[in-house]
């Protein structure tokens, strides 16, 4: 009886480790960092890590949806930049020296416009992919270049400053002692998790990624679902853009360069398969935190920035390597 019980618990531990191994890796890295640097394990530093992670983390959730459908979103960094400068231009104070770039309007409206623009650009990605039958890689690669170009054009290549205090609060303020970006990250996380795991939309996303033909045979509107996936990814890019601009108090057209790659890395470290049909929002958060903790830890340890890149590259490949070994072991 007891022996049987022991055996059972062993099996379930193995299963848990297989499924959530990446969580243990995150805990392991945290313990290691705490030992190496006493400054690491403090409320202040950990809050800082999560706040820094939030921008990429939010992008990564949109990317997770796209990757589960066997797609990808390369445009998230550029859409972030374009939305950022547009929202910034509508959120300037009246007393800027010289002319404001855009029309000044209440913060609420500029946010709505920003989110709408992100959703629209994402929707274009999705339509090109779903109805135009272009691979998502190409459609979003095009958008990546175009959105970046538009951001540079719109600002004539210069940053947009003199932003309203109320706008800056979004990225810089705190609520109940927790920075607003962390709140936003948490809320977006919960909504994304509900969408992916508990809603009709999420079932369809998994179905399309797992077997597109069978999804059609089940009466799923594949094209419409794909458009929604990319529109949602675009919307999340806009959220990140707003956070980044308000945190730095400036809209810069060069923001978010290669953020899409960090977002994809977070997603993949979180166990989302590029082959589609598999993925999870909580693990995507864990993936983003791993990247954030490593970045932060290496900063604290004073690791040279060039080395940081090399280490990060190794960790991405290692995480996926572990995952694929796990998949093949039977």
């Amino acid at each position, binding site marked *: 009886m007891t022996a049987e019980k022991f055996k059972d618990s062993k099996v379930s531990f193995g299963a848990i480790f297989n499924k959530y191994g990446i969580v243990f890796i995150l805990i392991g890295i945290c313990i290691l960092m705490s030992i190496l640097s006493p400054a690491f394990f403090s409320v202040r530093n950990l809050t800082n890590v999560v706040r820094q992670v939030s921008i990429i983390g939010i992008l990564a959730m949109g990317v997770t949806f796209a990757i589960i459908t066997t797609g990808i979103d390369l445009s998230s960094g550029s859409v972030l930049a374009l939305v950022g400068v547009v929202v910034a231009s509508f959120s300037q104070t009246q007393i800027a020296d010289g002319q404001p770039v855009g029309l000044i309007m209440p913060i609420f409206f500029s946010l709505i416009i920003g989110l709408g623009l992100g959703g629209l650009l994402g929707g274009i990605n999705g339509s090109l992919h779903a109805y135009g039958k272009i691979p998502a890689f190409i459609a979003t690669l095009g958008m990546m270049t175009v959105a970046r170009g538009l951001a540079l054009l719109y600002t004539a290549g210069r940053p947009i400053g003199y932003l309203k205090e109320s706008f800056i609060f979004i990225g810089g303020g705190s609520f109940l002692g927790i920075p607003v970006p962390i709140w936003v990250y948490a809320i977006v996380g919960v909504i994304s998790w509900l969408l992916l795991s508990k809603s009709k939309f999420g079932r369809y996303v998994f179905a399309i990624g797992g077997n597109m033909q069978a999804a059609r045979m089940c009466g799923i509107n594949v094209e419409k679902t794909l458009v929604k996936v990319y529109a949602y990814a675009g919307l999340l890019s806009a959220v990140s853009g707003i956070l980044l601009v308000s945190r730095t108090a400036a809209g810069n057209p060069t923001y978010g360069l290669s953020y899409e790659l960090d977002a994809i890395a977070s997603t993949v470290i979180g166990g989302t398969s590029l082959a589609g*049909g598999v993925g999870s929002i909580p693990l995507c958060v864990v993936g983003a935190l791993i990247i954030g903790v490593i970045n932060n830890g290496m900063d604290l340890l004073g690791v040279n920035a060039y080395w940081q890149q090399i280490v990060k590259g190794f960790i991405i490949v290692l995480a996926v390597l572990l995952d694929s070994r796990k998949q093949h072991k039977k």
Partner: protein
Amino acid sequence: MDGEYTLEITNMSKSFPGVKALKGVDLKVRKGTVHALMGENGAGKSTLMKILYGIYEKDEGEILFKGTPYKAGSPIEAIRSGITMIPQEISPVPNLDIASNVFLGKEHTFAGALSLVNQKKIHEETAKLFAELNIDLDPHLMMKDVSIANAQLVAIATAVSYDSDLIIMDEPTSALTEKEVEHLFTIIRKLKEERNISVIYISHKLDEIFSICDDVTVFRDGEFIGCNPVANMSKDQLISMMVGRSMDEFFHKESAEIGEVLLSVKDLSLEGQFSHINFELCRGEVLGVAGLMGAGRTELMEAIFGYTQPDSGVIELNGKPVEIAEPRDAISYGIGFVTEDRKLTGIFQELSIKDNMIMPDVPSYLKAGLLNNSRIKNECQVQRESLQIKTPSLEQLIKNLSGGNQQKVLLSRWLLMEPEVLILDEPTRGIDVGAKAEIHRLIGELAKMGKGIIMVSSEMPEILSMSDRILVMHEGTLSGEVSGSEATQEHILQLATGEGINKEES
């Protein structure tokens, strides 16, 4: 007695998490014989073959191959030791010619750093091999232009070219016509008689077992049931060994009352697939659709379901014409479709049984915009019990189920929607006798409830025993319609091969 057996497997066991797939089975294959390996789906046949082929590792047991202990760590090792497997679905390289496919991985090359392939030599050797095996194919033909039956023969030639002592054939005839099967058997006989090669022959088709095999081993639920020379056995004995039940329990179709016309198809055509198809389906009716491979049956069903668009024609439901542009339209009209190819158009491998079941009808399981898990569980549980789906849990990924159980899940997917018309394309292909009987029972029940069932099938006994009416297709046209009670195998075959068309009433 030394050397009587090519392969001796004793007391082999293998467990997967939650399942004991093999419980100490034996398999002894004599030299130069064809050995049938039979059993329902989930009996452990594939698991044993995968161990033999180095895909799985055994837990316990012993394998002697040609008298010496054998262990393969990968298919390549298995092939090098003299065991080749021809899977059910062979996947040759379409853009290489036949000879290059036969010699793939063991090309004759010229000396030099580039290792250029000696095309002339591989073509000559392939031609020689084909001549010895009576295979009439041009080695220069591109593989993509080769029929499934011929690709099967190429696979056998490839196995022979490895100097294999043992060839495993998994359902080699599932895509072949009778004539092609005969040709295949001639070649198999040549292999055993002239080359002393042993064959493990996995099939669900009893007729084939009795015409080609020497011995038969039966597994059931991972256990060894028995091994006998085929000559000493009857079909009924073999079936009862496989299922532990007798033949009488199969093929029961209770007659249902035939009601008004539910679906009518008028002059439906799709270029290159089928033309001018007219038929009606009534409530309570099981309409069998017979025909040879490539007769356009599946294509017709796909067009009715909206998966493809017909060029012309009208589909009417309850007397009213309906527009079906996509499968979702068909579903909204109450049509369900269990497709022929489970893997390609049926299951979502990475999703749970539960999710696979509810997929066509997700919106009806929502509560405040989110999935209502307890309702989903309850309804899926009812299906699981009524169809006797064997699984430890509804959360189990569908890819971990046997073929028969996967098919039951796909069936319950549509049952949950309570369709008016249910199209079943080869509903029992490649699944075991027990699951087959349950699916047949279910079809009967659905008809009794007043549903209309269209059943495409290539298995004569199934068509003959289940159908109220049988449509026969030949090269894209309806070549005849027979009433289920009057139909004979011969008559249907005549119509399917195009011989009986003139005799049929106009």
